[in-house]
């Protein structure tokens, strides 16, 4: 570890005089951009409801809607105000946790979505943990046996797995583990409304397996590449010349320096999962927000669409900032002002 630090410190970095702390200024800048992004996205999402061809309320309810219902809906979507006033009152209500009432299920959006959000978070977190462990282990194995048959077959498998569309992977997983070869798990994960997935964990298995197959190749590829890059660097060469063992080279020197890249890829995977679960949840009819998003778009359930898109945008922005900060924290070199 000490050698690493010495070499890193000796590497030519020209500190320029700058008052602000780099992490703090980056954090502030990123958060500001993020807040602006979320506001702009919320405007776009709100505007999208106004763009619906013809009168939005009629477009949503259909031609047979009663006049009373139309008036009610217009009021509910804040369409009875000017465009800007409507947005502001919608945003104000949203900031107070009131996202309106679902048009198809006639219940507050928030109450409907919370259990589904919990189910999706369970799915995402389980996938993230398993795929990270698996990707890191396989990446280490491949990097340690570089250019052997292990390395080649792992790399090719990763390339193939990462190419496949999510729903195709999910269909194959259902084929193998639920229908044909091994009928071990249920093919669909339908739950009673409001039920939590952790009460029926056997319905969680196949969606997680499908997502792990989709996501792990990226962790693997990234970790393998950064380990190999670290292993061919100057400081590892110095350590080799000093007589350090292979294990020490790998765990003491290369591994800590691969952390940044790994954190980055985990961040990217979480980002990807936030949006990508829609397809896998649809295949399994898994009661999460991805399935709700698809259903709400099919049914034009505007309040639900608005809530979910804004929620996903916030998650996206937050994850991005968190990833950047985490990368800085594990890369002392990058903390110096550039």
């Amino acid at each position: 570890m000490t050698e690493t630090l010495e070499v890193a410190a000796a590497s030519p970095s020209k500190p320029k005089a700058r008052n602000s702390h780099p992490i703090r200024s980056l954090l502030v800048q990123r958060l500001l951009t993020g807040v602006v992004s979320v506001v702009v996205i919320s405007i776009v999402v709100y505007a999208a409801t106004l763009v619906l061809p013809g009168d939005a309320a009629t477009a949503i309810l259909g031609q047979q809607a009663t006049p009373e219902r139309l008036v009610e809906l217009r009021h509910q979507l804040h369409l009875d105000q000017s465009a800007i006033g409507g947005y502001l009152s919608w945003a104000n209500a949203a900031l107070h946790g009131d996202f309106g009432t679902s048009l198809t299920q006639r219940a507050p959006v928030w109450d409907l979505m919370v259990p589904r959000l919990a189910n999706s978070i369970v799915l995402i977190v389980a996938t993230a943990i398993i795929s990270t462990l698996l990707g890191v282990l396989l990446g280490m194995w491949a990097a340690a046996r570089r250019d052997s048959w292990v390395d080649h077959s792992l790399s090719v498998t990763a390339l193939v797995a990462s190419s496949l569309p999510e729903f195709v992977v999910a269909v194959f997983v259902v084929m193998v583990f639920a229908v044909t070869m091994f009928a071990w798990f249920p093919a669909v994960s339908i739950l009673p409304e409001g039920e939590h997935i952790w009460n029926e964990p056997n319905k969680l298995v196949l969606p997680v397996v499908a997502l792990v197959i989709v996501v792990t190749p990226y962790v693997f590829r990234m970790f393998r590449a950064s380990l190999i890059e670290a292993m061919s660097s100057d400081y590892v060469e110095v350590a080799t010349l000093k007589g350090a063992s292979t294990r020490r080279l790998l765990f003491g020197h290369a591994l800590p320096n691969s952390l940044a890249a790994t954190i980055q890829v985990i961040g990217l995977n979480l980002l990807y999962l936030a949006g990508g679960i829609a397809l896998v949840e649809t295949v399994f009819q898994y009661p999460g927000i991805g399935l709700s998003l698809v259903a709400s778009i099919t049914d034009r359930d505007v309040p639900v669409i608005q809530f979910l898109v804004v929620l996903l945008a916030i998650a996206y922005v937050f994850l991005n900032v968190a990833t950047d900060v985490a990368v800085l924290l594990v890369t002392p070199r990058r903390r110096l002002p550039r």
Partner: protein
Amino acid sequence: MSDTASPATPPKQRAPAKRRGSVARIVRGALASRRGQVGLALTLLVVGIAFVGPFIPSRSPTEFSGVPYSLPGNGNGVLGTDALGRDVLARLLHGGWSLLLLAAISTVLAVLLGAIAGVVAAYRGRVTEMLIMRTVDIMLAIPQLVFVLLIVSVIGAKTWLVVVAVTLCQAPQVARVMYASAQDICERDFVKAVALWGVPPRKVIMRHIMPSLTTPLAVEGGLRLSFSIILIAGLNFLGFGTQPPNPSWGVMVNENRLGLATSYWGVLAPAIVLAILAVGTNVFADALARVAFGGEDGEEVPVATALELTKA
């Protein structure tokens, strides 16, 4: 071409040879590698099925030919029938061309739009740069699939809208990459020299900057094509895009999902074809990236490129 003869034009300048390559060189390099050959072969196989398929005499892809979910054989066709009793093989043969065509169109549009936006931002700087790149940031702050679904949800499932949505969702990614690559080129002396000569910005960008960016452009093209295919197939699967009764591989997977236990060919056949197509295009894109960034013989892809290749 005619203005090269006039005395007012700048002397022909070549960008420094490093990192400069033509699309032809990269494609040739990729085709020389095993990955490139395998990728192209798989892709061509599926492209063949998709575009020759409609001309192969088969049963009607939209009319009922038997009992739903019948197994192959016994006069039910090679692959049996689907959820509504239509011939699976016929639907498979007719269900690919629209996906490929839409993916190709939206990839070309996305790469064009993204490249122009990114390079213009890098070259013009100041307000233009800020406007373009902040817009890109915001567009990248929504998950790709959600972005496409949002656009499709506003107007409804129309074919042209799928192209627009996929283009708009891929273009920011291209713009980001091209912006990063162009920044360096814009600072080079040969660009500054032609600009000082009074060459209009449009010509500087098209004649002098773009030719130095063919490497990232080729790689982006390959990557975006494979992502577009996955995205459009996913949209079809979710029921946005190609509308029933028209056949499409993504639609077929969705329609016949419930019959998986009875007669799985209705799901398995389109899923396999989609898998081969996705693997083929992605492996070929990977071969392109290796030639472009990974050194001569497809050496290790550097970490930065590996990150770039990550689906995000």
